[in-house]
């Protein structure tokens, strides 16, 4: 009989068995504890909801109300504001607003500021950052601005989101500056900027002449959200920008702004060197001028880019009656691709009618 290394293998077996048992027991205990904690957390939130309702109905900002808010942790505050545990307890807008007021009155911003300096772990800090955002207090902006440029990707990201909760002109300037400095976060910053309630354009316009074409592109996209028409001229100017991305975005923005004075500029862009500028020019002409721009749009049917041709097709579908005389001419011609595109436009229009 061979007894090769049996003693060593048995020792290793014991180690593996012990490790297995430790993990298995830990796993079972974890699941039990997790279920218990979820229930306890739900009970806690329910209690918060009851207290909020009671305090709100009493109609007074009493000491009891301030004390109640002072006892809340950032996590609980965020739970209420985001409804992230909505499957257990749901908070309506009134409750959220009321708690926000209590939270600020109770001096929690100061407490959150000092909490950020303590070793509460990265995600603990992020909870504090999010809570600061949900207070919607201007004084929180100083703290959030400093964490915005943190080296940690997540802290920086959630600080951006938190600033987006505070609808103030200062938030706009902070986020525009951030958009300029952090290329990676530009889309997110722009998404937040478009949700902010003050008219952001007076701040955004400052970046329309930035050296970086990507910053100009985002600026022109955001200008399209303007409620005031004062900035349309700047967008029109940007259709002549040296960067094709900026020119394309300017055309798209003019479409959104439905600028009736932009026809000449957009027609010029139909001859642009970049295909995506031509595509956006076609789309913009179709959206703003519809049937009145069909003759210009139809000239792009023999464009070198299929994507431009597709946008012409879409323009024909959207304005089929105005396009019909041109379509007939094309169908009598010899350009097979143009004929095919015209047939597609007729097919899709018929299908839509059905």
């Amino acid at each position: 009989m061979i007894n090769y290394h049996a003693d060593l293998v048995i020792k290793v077996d014991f180690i593996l068995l012990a490790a297995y048992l430790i993990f298995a027991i830990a796993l079972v205990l974890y699941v039990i504890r997790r279920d218990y904690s979820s229930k306890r957390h739900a009970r806690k939130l329910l209690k918060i909801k009851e207290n909020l309702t009671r305090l709100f109905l009493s109609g007074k900002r009493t000491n009891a109300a301030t004390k109640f808010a002072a006892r809340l942790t950032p996590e609980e505050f965020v739970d209420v504001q985001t409804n992230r545990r909505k499957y257990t307890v749901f908070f309506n807008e009134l409750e959220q607003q009321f708690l926000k007021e209590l939270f600020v009155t109770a001096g929690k911003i100061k407490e959150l500021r000092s909490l950020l300096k303590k070793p509460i772990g990265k995600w603990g800090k992020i909870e504090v950052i999010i809570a600061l955002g949900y207070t919607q207090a201007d004084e929180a902006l100083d703290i959030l601005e400093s964490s915005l440029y943190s080296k940690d990707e997540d802290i920086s990201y959630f600080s951006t989101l938190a600033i987006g909760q505070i609808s103030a002109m200062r938030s706009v300037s902070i986020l525009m500056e951030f958009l300029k400095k952090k290329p990676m976060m530009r889309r997110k910053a722009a998404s937040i900027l478009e949700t902010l309630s003050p008219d952001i354009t007076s701040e955004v316009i400052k970046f329309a002449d930035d050296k970086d074409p990507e910053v100009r592109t985002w600026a022109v996209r955001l200008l399209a959200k303007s409620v005031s028409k004062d900035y349309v001229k700047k967008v029109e100017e940007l259709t002549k920008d040296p960067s094709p991305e900026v020119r394309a975005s300017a055309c798209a923005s003019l479409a959104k702004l439905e600028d009736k004075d932009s026809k000449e500029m957009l027609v010029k862009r139909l001859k642009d060197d970049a295909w995506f500028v031509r595509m956006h020019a076609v789309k913009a002409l179709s959206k703003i001028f519809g049937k009145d721009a069909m003759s210009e749009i139809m000239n792009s049917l023999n464009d070198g880019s299929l994507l431009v041709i597709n946008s012409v097709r879409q323009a024909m579908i959207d304005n089929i009656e105005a396009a019909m005389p041109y379509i007939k001419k094309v169908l009598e011609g010899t350009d097979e691709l143009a004929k095919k595109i015209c047939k597609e436009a007729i097919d899709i229009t018929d299908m839509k009618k059905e």
Partner: protein
Amino acid sequence: MTTPAFFNVLFYIFFGYFLILLVYYAFLIIVGLGEERRRWWQNITDDYPLVYFSSFTLPVSVIIPARNEEEWIRNTILSVINLNYPQFEAVVVDDGSTDRTFEILNETLDLKPVTVHYVKHFKDGQVYSIMKSMKYPNVTVISKSPGLKKAGAVNAGLNIVRYKYVCVMDADTILEPDSLLKVMTQVERDPEKVIGIGSYFGLVNDFVIKDGRILDYYFSYNPLVAYQNMEYIRSFFGNRIAWSAFNAMPNVAGGFGLWRKDVLYEMGGYSADFTCEDIEITFRAHDYIVKNKDKGYKILMLPYYVGWTEGPSNIKSLVSQRDRWQRVVNETAWSYKYMLFNPRYKWMGLLTMPYFLIYEVMGVFIETISISVVTASWIIGILDVRVFLAYFLLMLLSQSLISVMSLFAFVRDQKVFRLKYVVYLLFLSLIELFWYRWIISFAKLLGTIKFLFGYKTYDQYVREKRIRTS
């Protein structure tokens, strides 16, 4: 060589293999625990409504290749239509189905043929017709000839999709309504760098499904299905999440994978030269990353449930599936062998490729031979029962420990399993070596033999059960 010397060599090979595997898994699980926790926090704290309502959110094209999927196609397409995502299109590619797949698509979508200028960028076979849904304007169906496997069907979809991000899925995968939103929120954190992204999906067997929505998440107690659940957990939570932290993820699974279209275009689309397409395209993407190393591209894996797919519920189907998987593993490992220990590929060459070679390709031989030799030696009387049991326990416990560690990583952040199911999986992990492991080893051996003979057919397994609707 004398018998003791032979055993000595075998001992070092087997012992070394199990020890390396254990240490490797333990390392990946520790890294994965940190990465999963990070993603979990991101998930619960992120502002999804912001992404949903933003006009800057990136639109997505979803490609659903389908061949003989009459059982699933209706629920799959409805799950896509029900997605909570602001702007997306769905392109279903009927890859020459011979069953009722097309009929069901027509009933569900009310299709009408349209003339579309179709440009063949990639190899896709013959396209018969292109149809638009009258009910859902963002849904298109392509009907094409079979023969180029899923790769050809995906390529046909790629030829027609409009958006920059393309989600490729299986026709038997039911998506969670917020799957795209969750995944794209991660992409939008750095859209210039993320070129591919996958996420976790589980097994749908025994779930109650109606109109593309899951009504009851009932995890199957069929041991074959439960073992597959555990394998998915071992694969996603045991190593893929950690590989993702090192940007060395070798497989964005075919059931749900999101890619940047311009990158797929530059890579030349999917290849039908392999048995399956998902692992190969991911390896090719790593080649692309190395060729464009200044751009800092990333391929990510997320731990969020994005969808549910059907797993084989009988041994024949399971063997057929795993034989196919093994073939594609071998084909890919062979085609991309130059990545092994190649410092240009960084962690992909130094961390993932060695695992692929040692565990995924060679593992089946090492495990089968080690168990067979030890068992045979005991039967013919070379080893006494104590030694035999010691060796057998070593194999059993190392496998079980990997399972329990992965399960721990999974259960910590995913709250889908109840205590009873966790205990059931723990029990199954202890008896895996007695039967399930052998089925998988047999399938892997079969796959390896077929690979050596150059067999590359995509064998679709036969569906056994009807979907539960109540």
